[in-house]
């Protein structure tokens, strides 16, 4: 089955470019706002968008994303709303969409039902934060059947033998968590990033994206030297929190994404 994530990485490789992946919580600041925000960040140079499914107990997220999820939940956003948002984006854009979620909202929705609806809505990948290799098998098979890539995480604490096993079952791309910690901005990126990414390269041909803590153009530049794509989340989400005029938000996020992704264009 064709998949927009695969196609995008193939194109990036052809063009000799590195990808920019932008994260947003779906439904923050409102369900209606997300599709225009995705338009803006796509126009600003984002190659893939990660949409966060808000959850009451986001234990892998730092405060910026926690508050973002709380805002979305207060607006009544649930998984059905998120899929509705994806459908709306699909009426005008072919940008690859990865849902970034905790497992329980998906379990509550019904996993098979979710996979069917996500496929129909136009979701390309699912990254479940609290679903490590040992638990992922049956969920991955359900997503496989729908042509949805089940994205695997590798962390700095993952030992080499385990990296190999995760890579063997990975789909779409590998998401390397660039530091031990939760999501959120950092002053500098981990010093041993290059070594870890090289370890992963040795055992997979899949593209590798690096995320968690990347928040400045300099970080993006540094990470893109070794990775195939760079994920920025909190630095973008923070703009949503800061903004008092929702109408100005697409322009603000566009500017921010253009600034953050600039190092990927000037190569």
């Amino acid at each position: 089955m064709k998949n927009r994530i695969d196609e995008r990485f193939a194109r990036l490789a052809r063009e000799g470019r590195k990808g920019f992946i932008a994260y947003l919580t779906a439904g923050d600041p409102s369900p209606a706002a997300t599709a225009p925000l995705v338009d803006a960040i796509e126009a600003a140079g984002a190659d893939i968008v990660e949409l966060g499914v808000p959850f009451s107990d986001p234990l892998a997220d730092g405060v910026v994303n926690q508050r973002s999820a709380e805002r979305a939940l207060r607006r009544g956003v649930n998984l059905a709303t998120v899929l509705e948002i994806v459908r709306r984006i699909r009426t005008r854009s072919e940008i690859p969409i990865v849902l970034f979620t905790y497992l329980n909202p998906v379990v509550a929705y019904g996993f098979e039902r979710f996979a069917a609806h996500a496929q129909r809505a136009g979701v390309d990948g699912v990254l479940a934060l609290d679903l490590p290799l040992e638990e992922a098998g049956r969920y991955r098979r359900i997503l496989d059947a729908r042509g949805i890539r089940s994205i695997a995480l590798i962390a700095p604490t993952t030992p080499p033998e385990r990296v190999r096993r995760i890579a063997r079952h990975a789909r779409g791309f590998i998401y390397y968590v660039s530091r031990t910690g939760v999501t959120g901005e950092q002053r500098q990126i981990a010093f041993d990033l290059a070594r870890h990414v090289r370890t992963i390269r040795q055992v997979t041909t899949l593209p590798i994206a690096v995320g968690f803590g990347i928040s400045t153009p300099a970080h993006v530049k540094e990470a893109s030297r070794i990775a195939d794509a760079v994920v920025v989340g909190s630095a973008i989400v923070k703009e949503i929190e800061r903004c008092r005029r929702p109408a100005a938000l697409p322009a603000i996020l566009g500017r921010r994404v253009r600034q953050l992704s600039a190092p990927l264009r000037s190569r």
Partner: protein
Amino acid sequence: MKKRTCSPDRRGYFGAYGGRFVPETLVPALQQLQREFTRARGDPRFRAELRAMLRDYAGRPTPLTFAPRLTEAFGGARVYLKREDLAFTGAHKINNCLGQGLLAKRMGKRRVIAETGAGQHGVATATVAARLGLQCRVYMGEEDTRRQALNVFRMELLGATVVPVTSGSRTLKDAIDEAMRDWVTNVRNTHFVLGTVAGPHPYPLMVREFQRVIGRETRRQVLNSEGRLPDCLIACVGGGSNAIGLFYDFLGDPAVRMYGVEAGGLGVRSGRHAARFSGGRPGVFQGSMSYVIQDSDGQIRTTHSISAGLDYAGVGPEHSCLYESGRVRYDSVTDREALEGFLLLSSLEGISPALETAHAIAYAARIVPRMKKNQIVVINISGRGDKDVEIVRSALRRRTGAR
């Protein structure tokens, strides 16, 4: 005879419940913990050290006390109390903290973190950290730090840092989220001393093994004084560690009936409770698959109970397994009934139980009067009530005021 337990498989599943649903960063630490725990369990030196600490430091074995006036008041079975309230720091929590503290040292981790609701587990962890020379940080919902200010000070006196948690609903579940975030960040030098039989594998198994001492002692003590096994065991269930600790060594004896008592809060129908089995359904929460109180979208709901220790949306996966197999019966009592239980045990036996424990007393008041006089019941007095005196006082005031 087939042992009717739900012992976990290699992946930490008790039947359909359990597992390890955590971010990848934590998986290697949980695997290391599982390895070290397995090794320590089989190591005579570790066992001897833990046994000595439980005896000389925590004051075990705790007594099994016959309760003559409570027995008379109920007019049914003979009532025994397993006195975990007499364990050092005032609750069963110390059993687990000593085990995990020694394990942390064995793994070379110099820093421990813990979550706490009312503060019992936080105090026990801070105590063990002081004794073993470990750095200690305790996460506590901001709401709870206010209600339990004295326990906060107590932990600080023991050298721990108490961090008020302001995210989410600012209660126990958010304290666990925050402790997990700390752990994800500092996993290389830090051990997370989880206080109950919930969370990702191997915690439900490991904490049970450290709490089994309650049931093992009870079994020996009741055989000594009565010459036979009890007919019935009663314990309150928050995460479920005191209950599983008492129940586990009796699971293979079908004649011993068991009751787990959850917090009914203002009544299960009010929606303000922590009764996971009558008011929740299976889901993935804080590391494992188990019964959890959630809305139709899978968002975890805030719970309510007069007792902070039972005020939790999740429950240990082994309890979910025992619930579905029918081996243990789970039921709930309300805040008001628990308050009656507190007063009853205080006035009849001179023992003021923790409000958590008071739920078990209240449930006993419901079922023991229907039992026969030659039967035996054991209630786990999981903790003492000093910490709750303020809460009881204001609840009684409200009650008098409303008259």
